[in-house]
């Protein structure tokens, strides 16, 4: 259990412990959807929303259901099922009641059902023994951090596509991974500021 206030944790999750750039979680949709800023933004917002909500839901399920029943070793399965169900539910609701929103981010929701960053955030908050408030901050922060990373890469890729002639071997995921690596290096500069585990 770390004594760290929720606000600091929130910013730490965005910058020093960015879930994508330090833990390299959620790379698959990150590589697939980062071709342009618009869709990066859509996916990013979807991730922020889902990650924040599932972090809180999974916290409650873990401490009020799994722990009392001595079932904490089942958290992987339970968390995955809960995330999948939650995403499905959100998709149906958005599709029905907010069609405009659905066209912007709804179509990305099925993509993140199995996003490991979302499961990762839920598991980290258990391992690191965060409180409910800390979990909320961590979930939201990780989501925003993930969004920040994908928007940055989306912008860079858009720019590169327009202005540079790439060797064939560097096109697509290859260059994206290199860019991500350099961004991860840049984000390491923040890491002296706060340390969380």
């Amino acid at each position, binding site marked *: 259990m770390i004594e760290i206030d929720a606000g600091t944790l929130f910013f730490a999750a965005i910058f020093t412990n960015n879930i994508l750039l330090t833990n390299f979680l959620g790379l698959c949709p990150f590589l697939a959807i980062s071709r342009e800023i618009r869709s990066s933004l859509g996916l990013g917002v979807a991730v922020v929303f889902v990650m924040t909500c599932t972090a809180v839901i999974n916290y409650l399920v873990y*401490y009020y259901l799994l*722990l009392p029943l*001595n079932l904490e070793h*089942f958290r992987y*399965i339970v968390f995955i099922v809960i995330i999948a*169900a939650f995403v499905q539910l959100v998709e149906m609701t958005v*599709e029905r009641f907010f069609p405009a929103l659905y066209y912007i981010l709804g*179509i990305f929701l099925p993509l993140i059902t199995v996003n490991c960053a979302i499961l990762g955030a839920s598991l980290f908050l258990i391992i690191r023994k965060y409180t409910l408030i800390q979990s909320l901050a961590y979930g939201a922060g990780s989501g925003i951090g993930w969004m920040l990373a994908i928007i940055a890469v989306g912008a860079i890729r858009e720019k590169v596509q327009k202005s540079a002639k790439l060797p064939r071997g560097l096109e697509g995921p290859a260059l994206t991974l290199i860019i991500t690596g350099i961004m991860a290096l840049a984000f390491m500069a923040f890491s002296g500021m706060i340390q969380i585990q």
Partner: protein
Amino acid sequence: MAVSRRQKVEATVSHECQRKRSKRPNLNDLTTDNRQRTTDRFMLPLILSLLAISGISAILALLLEVADSYLADYGEKHILLNDQKDLVVEGGRPLLFTLGEEGIFIPSACGGKGTCSYCKVKIHEGGGPVLPTETPYLSPEEVKANVRLSCQVKVKEDLKVEIPEELFLVKEYKIKVERIEDLTPEIKGLHLKILTPEEGITFKPGQYVQFEVPKYKMTSSEEYRAYSIASGSEDHRSLELVITKVPKGAVTTYVHDFLKEGEELHMTGPYGDFYLRESDRDILMIATGSGMAPMKAMLQQIEAQKIQRKTTFFFGERTKADLFYMDQLEAWEKKMPHFTFVPTLSRATEEDQWTGEKGRVTNLIEKHIDEKANIDVYICGSPAMVESCVELLTKKGTPEDRVYFDKFE
């Protein structure tokens, strides 16, 4: 904060207890009494876990089911087709499948995954904005003309849809596999009999059907793919398909390894705009592999209708063992003096003792086709082959609108 901290202390304690507990029992020195207690120790948590996990899953499933019946129920919607046919359908599903249920079959080679771009229709009213999943397949002109992928558009409101007139001819058929023939080690010929509807299929030689195979161990649902009809159009009740084995292909694997003679399956058709156009120009056909299928159908038409246009057929394969339908083609060559068949092998081996043309079909174009030849060209085969042939022919001065092709992805 305090509450949750206490909880966490409990959590670690219970964790440790459990670990100690599970270490202790030694199966060798168990008395009956001990065994009873061990059963309790193992069985109780097991049952409890099973119940809890099932409970959670059941609650979530129930929640989704309830949500599905309330949220995904869009009620009855109207689809106005080509300003003439008004369909009342159950909303909420992709347009492609909704129309399929109504007996209107839009071609689709990928089965609704949004990867083949065959299922284009025009949606003039309703349907919402173009989705990011569609944009890669639509040109700016198509977007302006309201073209959409029917597998991506869900029926959530009343729609006004325009489809090509001939799709009204498309029907679903129940078929029986009469005979499976080994044409080459890689290619099988399927002889099919149409059971229903009675009147069979009416098609133009060169068109294709969607052949459906049931769910089996490699797939999670029914899968269908497009195959050209290799037999003539005179017989409305029987068909021939030519199917090349694709490594890991869901449908071709079924056909090659699981399909049995006598099996009953479904297909829809006919589809496609690849068929002989009327003109007085010479005909040049170019095919590789199972691209032979539509050509055979067209040649059968040329024979049956006694079309007298000079016809040349370039057929490319790798080795002699890959050639098929040779007897039929030689018979046609003898019977029709205006028909020439030129097979070419790109990797002829020593044993083949091949004296015919060597190289790819593009070499044949280079060699035999004059500049600005007065020809209509029909090409069928892999996309790469089709593209290089079209490029070469255009360079030789054949107008693009006289080149017709069907790409086999």
